[in-house]
């Protein structure tokens, strides 16, 4: 089982040769953040542009359209304007009438009839004075309706276009972020694989080093014994064996540094 696992690891270490430094993930994250900032900025510019257009519309309505429109109404350029002028003139005329003076009641002896006539005159006076107010209110309502209608006609396409542009931009940025995030995720996984692989390789390297030292120690020992055994002179043999061991110690010291 362990051998199988080892074989798999060996295979992985060779096949999973993709490599990426940690900074690639950091860079990908920075790119993602930059994309998000760009989107915010881009959308803000779009909103500012359309806000400017809306201001232009309001200014145009206040400075140009409404004065021209009211002028057309007052001067009776259309049927509605002419009707308004006629009713306005009538309203003014009726408002000026002194109804009590206009109707002679001196010759009427019956006091009840006089009272009834006076009440009727008062009702007419109130109604006719109110007529001027009604004309002005109707004028105001219709003028306001037309102004609002015109403003809407100008603003609706601007608002629809703004919504469309923002929608398109958001969809574009969403695609961009999805792609970028996917790349970031992939890079992160490559970094993880690289880290883990490096850790295992390091561990293997250290063990190899240990084994190499052990092998060389055995070899040095054997060499020393051979030198010692093959030497005719004991002192010379001991010196040669010690030299061999010293040499091994030097090499072992360098290898473990």
């Amino acid at each position, binding site marked *: 089982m*362990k051998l199988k*696992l080892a074989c*798999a*690891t*060996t295979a*992985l*270490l060779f096949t*999973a040769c*993709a490599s990426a430094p940690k900074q690639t993930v950091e860079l990908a994250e920075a790119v993602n953040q930059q994309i998000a900032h760009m989107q915010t900025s881009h959308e803000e510019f779009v909103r500012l542009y*359309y806000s400017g*257009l809306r201001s*232009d*519309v309001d200014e*145009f309505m206040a400075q*140009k359209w409404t004065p*021209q*429109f009211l002028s*057309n*109404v007052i001067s009776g*350029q*259309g*049927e*509605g*304007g002419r*009707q*308004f002028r006629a009713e306005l003139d009538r309203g003014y005329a009726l408002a000026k009438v002194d109804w009590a003076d206009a109707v002679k009641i001196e010759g009427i002896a019956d006091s009840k009839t006089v009272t009834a006539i006076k009440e009727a005159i008062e009702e007419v006076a109130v109604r006719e004075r109110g007529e001027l107010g009604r004309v002005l209110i*109707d004028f105001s*309502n*219709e003028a306001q309706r*037309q102004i609002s*209608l*015109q403003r809407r006609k*100008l603003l609706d*396409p*601007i608002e629809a*276009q703004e919504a469309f*542009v923002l929608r*398109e*931009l958001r*969809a*574009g940025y969403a*695609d961009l972020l*999805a*792609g970028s995030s*996917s*790349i970031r*995720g*992939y890079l992160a*996984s490559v970094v993880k*694989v690289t*880290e*883990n*692989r490096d*850790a*295992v390789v390091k*561990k*293997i390297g250290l*063990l*190899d080093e240990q*084994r190499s030292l052990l092998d060389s120690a055995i070899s040095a020992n054997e060499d020393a014994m051979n030198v010692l055994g093959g030497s005719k002179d004991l002192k010379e043999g001991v010196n040669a064996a010690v030299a061999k061991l010293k040499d091994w110690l030097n090499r072992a010291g360098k290898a473990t540094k």
Partner: protein
Amino acid sequence: MGFNFDEEANLTNQQLAEELAKITPMTVDEINALLPRKADKQRLQQLIEIVSKAESENKKIAALTTNIGELGGVVVKVVGALLKVV
């Protein structure tokens, strides 16, 4: 009875046609020319799926190497020996 000033409103629009044209939004063509070209949704999705799959594979490999690392020196030693043979 109320008034109707449709005629006067239309007349006003005719009189101010030139200025009205200046405050209308961009045309569809102008907008399309300004907007970034749309990514091919289907292709993008396919690519994302491929990359995600590769990411998933890498995660499995990373998990496996972690587990192997945690198994200790025996397995690693065998791996080392195998590597040396290879």
